[in-house]
C-alpha cells in the first residue's frame, strides 16, 4: 500500500561555483501528496529540473520504484511515469485544447507512418481511444466545452488546469506541480485544492508539489519538506512544520 515511489538521496546541483541544491533528500510514497516549500531562490525548481531530467544532477541518486533515473534523458523519465508542470505555464499556445491533449499522448498513439497514411483500422481505433481519453480528462478539469478553442485564448486559470490535464493524460504515477496556484484567485485555488486531492484519492497517483500558498500546502500535504538556500532545513507533517523554529526563522528572517 504505502510503498516508496520516489526516493531521492543527497541530490546536489552546482552551477559553476553556485550550489543551487545541496544534499536534498525526498521520499514520496504511493498515493501521497508531498510538498516542497522554501523562500524564493531556495532551489525548489532546480530540484524539479533535476528529477525530471532537464538538468543532470551533479551528485545524488534518484530512485523511481527501485530504478535509478538520475542521468536519464528528460523524455525517458517522463515515459517512466514522472511528469511535471512548469512555474510559468507552457502550453502549445497556437494549438487547440484537444490538440494539446493529443500531443501528450503521442507515444500511446500509433506512430507508424504507413498505418497512419493508410488509416488502418488499428490506427483509427487508437486515435479514437486517444480522443476519448483526452475528452475524459478535459471533463475532469472542466474544460470539455473549450476543446476546440486555441489554448492561448483560455484564461490563466484554465491554462493552469489544462496543463495538469495534459500531464494526466500521459498516465503518470508521480505528478510534479511547480507553483500551480500562482496567479489564481481564491475560488480557483479552492478548485485546484479539490482537484489535487481527487487525483490522489480517485486516480491513485502521488503528487510532488512546490507552492508558496501556505494554506494550500498545509491543508493538503501528507508530508512537507522545507529547503532554504539549496539545503534541507526540516521535514514533517503540517503541524511539525508550522511549529518548527528554523522554518519560521527562514521565512521571517532573523529577529
Amino acid at each position, binding site marked *: 500500500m504505502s510503498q516508496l515511489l520516489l526516493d531521492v538521496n543527497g541530490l546536489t546541483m552546482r552551477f559553476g561555483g553556485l550550489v543551487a541544491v545541496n544534499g536534498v533528500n525526498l521520499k514520496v510514497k504511493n498515493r501521497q501528496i508531498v510538498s516542497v516549500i522554501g523562500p524564493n531562490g531556495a532551489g525548489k525548481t532546480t530540484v524539479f529540473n533535476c528529477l525530471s531530467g*532537464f538538468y543532470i544532477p551533479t551528485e545524488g541518486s534518484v530512485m523511481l520504484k527501485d530504478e535509478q533515473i538520475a542521468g536519464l534523458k528528460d523524455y525517458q523519465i*517522463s515515459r517512466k511515469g514522472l511528469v511535471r*508542470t512548469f512555474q510559468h505555464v507552457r*502550453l502549445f499556445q497556437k494549438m487547440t485544447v484537444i490538440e494539446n491533449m493529443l*500531443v501528450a499522448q503521442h507515444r500511446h498513439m500509433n506512430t507508424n507512418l504507413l498505418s497512419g497514411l493508410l488509416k488502418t483500422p488499428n490506427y483509427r481505433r487508437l486515435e*479514437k481511444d486517444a*480522443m476519448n481519453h483526452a475528452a475524459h480528462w478535459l471533463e475532469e478539469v472542466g474544460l*470539455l466545452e473549450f*476543446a476546440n478553442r486555441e489554448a492561448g485564448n483560455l484564461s490563466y486559470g484554465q491554462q493552469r488546469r489544462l496543463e495538469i490535464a495534459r500531464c494526466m493524460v500521459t498516465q503518470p504515477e508521480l505528478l510534479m506541480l511547480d507553483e500551480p496556484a500562482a496567479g489564481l484567485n481564491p475560488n480557483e485555488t479552492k478548485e485546484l485544492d479539490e482537484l489535487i486531492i481527487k487525483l490522489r484519492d480517485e486516480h491513485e497517483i502521488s503528487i510532488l508539489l512546490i507552492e508558496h500558498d501556505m494554506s494550500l500546502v498545509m491543508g493538503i500535504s501528507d508530508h512537507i519538506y522545507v529547503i532554504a538556500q539549496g539545503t534541507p532545513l526540516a521535514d514533517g507533517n503540517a503541524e511539525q512544520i508550522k511549529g518548527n523554529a528554523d522554518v519560521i526563522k527562514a521565512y521571517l528572517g532573523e529577529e
Partner: protein
Amino acid sequence: MTSSKLYNAIFAAGISLILACLMIGVKLDTDGSTLAVKGATTEQWMWIFGGIAVVFLSQLFSAQVDALFGAIPKPNFQKVLPQGEKMAALKPWLISAVIVVMLIWPFMVSRGTVDLATLTLIYIMLGLGLNIVVGLAGLLDLGFVAFYAVGAYTYALLSQYFGMSFWACLPISAAMAAGFGFLLGFPVLRLRGDYLAIVTLGFGEIIRILLNNWTSLTGGPNGISGIAKPGLFGLEFNRRAKEEGAVTFHEYFGMDYSSSYKVIFLYLIAVLLVICVIYLINRLMRMPIGRAWEALREDEIACRSLGLNRTAIKLSAFTLGASTAGFAGCFFAARQGFISPESFVFIESAIILAIVVLGGMGSQVGIIFAAIIMTILPEMAREFAEYRMLLFGLLMVVMMRWRPEGLVPMKRPNLELKQQ
C-alpha cells in the same frame, strides 16, 4: 516623439543614399583596355534621389503609412468559403472540380503556358516540402535547394549511367534526398534558430560546390544533358523512338507527331505528383507526427516534459521535407533534360522560403497561391530584367506590412469529440 521620427527618417535616408551610391551610383566599366569608375547618368541619379525621398517621407509619416496599409481590405478567404458542415459536404466537389479543370485546361492553351504551369507545380512541391520543415516544425532551413539538387542528380546520374527509367528513379531520388536530410539533420538539429539556418545554408553551398567540382561524376559546371524524359508505360514522346523497334506515343495511337504532347504529358505528371504530395502531407498533418512537429515549434521544453523525443521528431520533419524536395528534383531533371549546378543556387532556396512565408506558414492552400504568384510574377516582369529582385523585395515588404501572417493563414482543424 516627432524628433525621434525625424532622426529615424534622416538615418534611413542616409543609409539608402550610401547603399544606392555604392550599388547604382558608381559602376566599374571597361574603358579601352583599362577599368574605369563611371558615375550614374543624370536620369539614374534622379531615380536614386526620388527613392531616397520616398524612404525619408515614409519614415517621417510612418504612422500615416501604417494607417494606409491598415485601410487596405484584407480579404478573409475563410469567410468567403462556407463554413462547417456545408463546407464538409462541398469540399469533395470543389476538389474534384479543381482537378478536372487542371486536367482539361492544358489542351486549350499554348505550349509556353503549360510549361510555365509545370514549373509552378514544381515550386508548389518544393514549397510544400519546405513547409514541413519551416512552417510546421519551425526549423529554419536555408539550404533546402541541396535536397532538390540531390534528387535531380540522382535521377540524372542513374539515367545516364544505368539507363534507369524516370518512374523507377522517382522513389530512389526521394530516398536519396531523405538520406541526405537524415545525415545532415543528425548532427545539426540540436542547434537552434540562427545557428541551424547558417549550417543549412552552408550545406546547400557545399552540395553545389561538390557538384561543380566532381567533374568526373557530375560533369562539373557543364552539367548533365540528354536526361531521358518520362514515358507512358514504355511509350516515348519523341518524334522517333531512341531504340530500334520501340514504339513512340504518337505512332502507337496513330496520331501526327506534336511536340506539345510531351509538354502536356509532363504537366500531367506534375499534377499527379503534386496531388500525391498534397494528400500525403495533409494526412501527415493530421497524424500524431504532424501534431508533434507543431508542438515542437510551439514549445520544445513542454514537449520534452511530455515524453516526446525531440531529436527523432525534428529528424522526421527534416527527412520528410527533404524527400519531397528529392521528388521535385527528380521531376525537374526529367522535365529539363539538362541539369547543372547553376539550377541549384542559394537564390532558389530563398525563393522557396519566400513561398512558404508569403503563403502563410503551415497553410497548404496559401503555399499553392504563393507558388503561383512567385513563378508567374517574374515571367510577367520580364521587361524589368535586372530590377526583378528589387520588385521581389518590394513585394515581400508590402506583404509583411499588409498580411504578416501570410496570404492564407493556417487554420486549426476542428476535431469532433465523439461522446458515448
